[in-house]
């Protein structure tokens, strides 16, 4: 490389010889010694924890798998003394598809495929980001058409939605739609135009001061009072609107923090080049602000996935709601442990994927910085 104007001549002798780092540590034995048995106290703690695991793991394993019952006609088949997973396995399709008409369940499967396809797109380095953004932007509409009907597909009424598909539907749509709303709110709150700033600030302050449950109740019970007679807005639609417009407020504050963290010089450089406000925001400020807020935004997305369970209280039966209903049925009453473990595993899996995506993003960003 000869790109520096003021460069040393090539033949200046080096002052010293570089040596390799003398501390070399690798291999599992080395790792175990350094991390588990580095001192008397650490050795004692390690051995104590191993002892506890040795006591607990066989019992848990026996209950959950070895003595458990996975198949059978009804509860009487649970004779092993371990977990009775029948409440989940026998009602599997009910928990997944809710009350969706059986002949149309391929539409739910298609919706799952459309939703899950986001992840390979997000993880890919080859596909241009533009297409990923367009895909995610169109996803809510696609899900709505596939699941609710339209373009030749028969309409399925939203009260038939339930179980995992409802959880998925609510989470996917509110994640996709709340981010753009949040960006507009964050920009509005930073706007130089007082009226826009006041509106955005007032909206954010009001919404985040009131529990989301309140808005869910209002949307499901009171909205009808304010609409003209004869006009009816779908219950599910109202609930989705609440989730989008409430969760957007928290994201807006996260994004605003990210925008404020960008040095003023970035906006000045863009201005000096003659770049207008919207392009400066879209291409210069927001990409940096969103990158800096990845951990907080991922945290919020995970929160939104879990918040979908709140729709239960306005009568929509998501995965948690159907599970509770299962436990109330005569046949499966008392199997709380098994059912809630099952639901926890499902939520854990979803949120784990989101969390891993966050870590992947952070690593990518760190790589780009160096």
């Amino acid at each position, binding site marked *: 490389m000869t790109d520096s*104007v003021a460069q040393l001549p090539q033949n200046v002798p080096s002052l010293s010889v570089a040596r390799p780092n003398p501390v070399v540590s690798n291999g599992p034995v080395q790792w175990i010694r350094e991390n588990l048995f580095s001192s008397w106290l650490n050795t004692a703690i390690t051995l104590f924890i191993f002892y506890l695991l040795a006591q607990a793991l066989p019992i848990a394993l026996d209950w959950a798998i070895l003595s458990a019952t996975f198949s059978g006609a009804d509860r009487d088949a649970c004779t092993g003394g371990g977990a009775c997973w029948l409440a989940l396995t026998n009602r599997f399709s009910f928990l997944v598809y809710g009350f969706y008409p059986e002949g149309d369940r391929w539409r739910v499967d298609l919706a799952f495929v459309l939703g899950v396809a986001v992840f390979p797109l997000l993880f890919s380095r080859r596909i241009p980001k533009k297409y990923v953004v367009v895909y995610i932007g169109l996803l809510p509409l696609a899900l709505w058409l596939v699941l609710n009907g339209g373009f030749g597909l028969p309409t399925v009424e939203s009260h038939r939605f339930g179980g995992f598909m409802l959880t998925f539907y609510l989470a996917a749509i509110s994640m996709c739609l709340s981010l753009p709303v949040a960006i507009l709110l964050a920009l509005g709150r930073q706007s130089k135009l007082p009226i826009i700033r006041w509106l955005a600030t007032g909206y954010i302050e009001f919404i985040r001061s009131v529990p989301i449950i309140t808005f869910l109740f209002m949307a499901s019970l009171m909205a009808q009072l304010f609409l003209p007679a004869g006009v009816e807005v779908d219950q599910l639609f109202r609930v989705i609107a609440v989730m989008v417009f409430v969760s957007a407020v928290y994201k807006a504050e996260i994004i605003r923090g990210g925008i404020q963290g960008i040095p003023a*010089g*970035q906006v*000045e450089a863009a*201005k*000096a080049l003659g770049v207008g406000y919207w392009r400066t925001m879209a291409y210069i400020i927001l990409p940096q602000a969103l990158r800096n807020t990845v951990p907080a935004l991922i945290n919020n997305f995970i929160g939104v996935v879990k918040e979908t369970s709140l729709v239960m209280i306005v009568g929509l039966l998501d995965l948690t709601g159907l599970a509770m209903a299962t436990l109330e049925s005569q046949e499966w009453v008392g199997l709380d442990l098994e059912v809630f473990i099952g639901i926890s595993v499902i939520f854990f899996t979803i949120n784990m994927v989101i969390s891993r995506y966050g870590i992947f993003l952070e690593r990518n960003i760190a790589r780009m*910085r160096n």
Partner: protein
Amino acid sequence: MFEAQNNDSIIKIRNLNKWYEAFHVLRGIDLDVANGEKIVICGPSGSGKSTLIRTINHLEEFQEGNLTVDGIEMDENLKNIDAIRQEVGMVFQSFNLFPHMSVLDNCTFAQRHVRGRPKAEAEAIAMDLLERVKIPHQAHKYPGQLSGGQQQRVAIARALCMNPKIMLFDEPTSALDPEMIAEVLDVMVELAEGGMTMLCVTHEMGFARKVADRVIFMDEGVIVEENDPETFFNNPQHERSKMFLSQILGH
């Protein structure tokens, strides 16, 4: 204070006044810059020198006076501000490259989005200018991977990509390690020799002697003295200029 220039002045500033809240930062500035002229502005910190050049592309607003750039009157009309900004390039003390874009994208972004040039044309222009600032090999790196001197040269190339008629430099070497100052000044000297109209806020007196047509000394928001560099450095007229020069050249 100033000598009235002929009518081909590209920048005309008349009785410019600016306040930050109660602080009167620019006090009745009059300045004409001829096409192709190189001006070095110096002065103690807080004298308003950066503020003055930042008003020229409306990074700072002013409350009183007139400012005309290339025949366009600076007012609150956004169209005029945009039109002026397209004629004026700026280089900042802290480089202000876009860290999430490669060097090449930094140079093509405004060309494509403001000038509306097609990608291939914008990239050809960018590569040509990166060649001129002697860093074509770094085009696909990110700013964070470059040294300060290299980043500042990219920043100069980025501004030049827009084909500005005027270049503003706001202490372009103040944030650099000493061994990198020369490589940036070399590029600026070359640019000056090419005939660009330049206003530089800098304390690099060697650079001022070499390229400046005029040195302007500011203090407390006023142009205290303006002169050709030889007279200014060898025979400063004003007590304040003398003191300032003795401070920066004294040791």
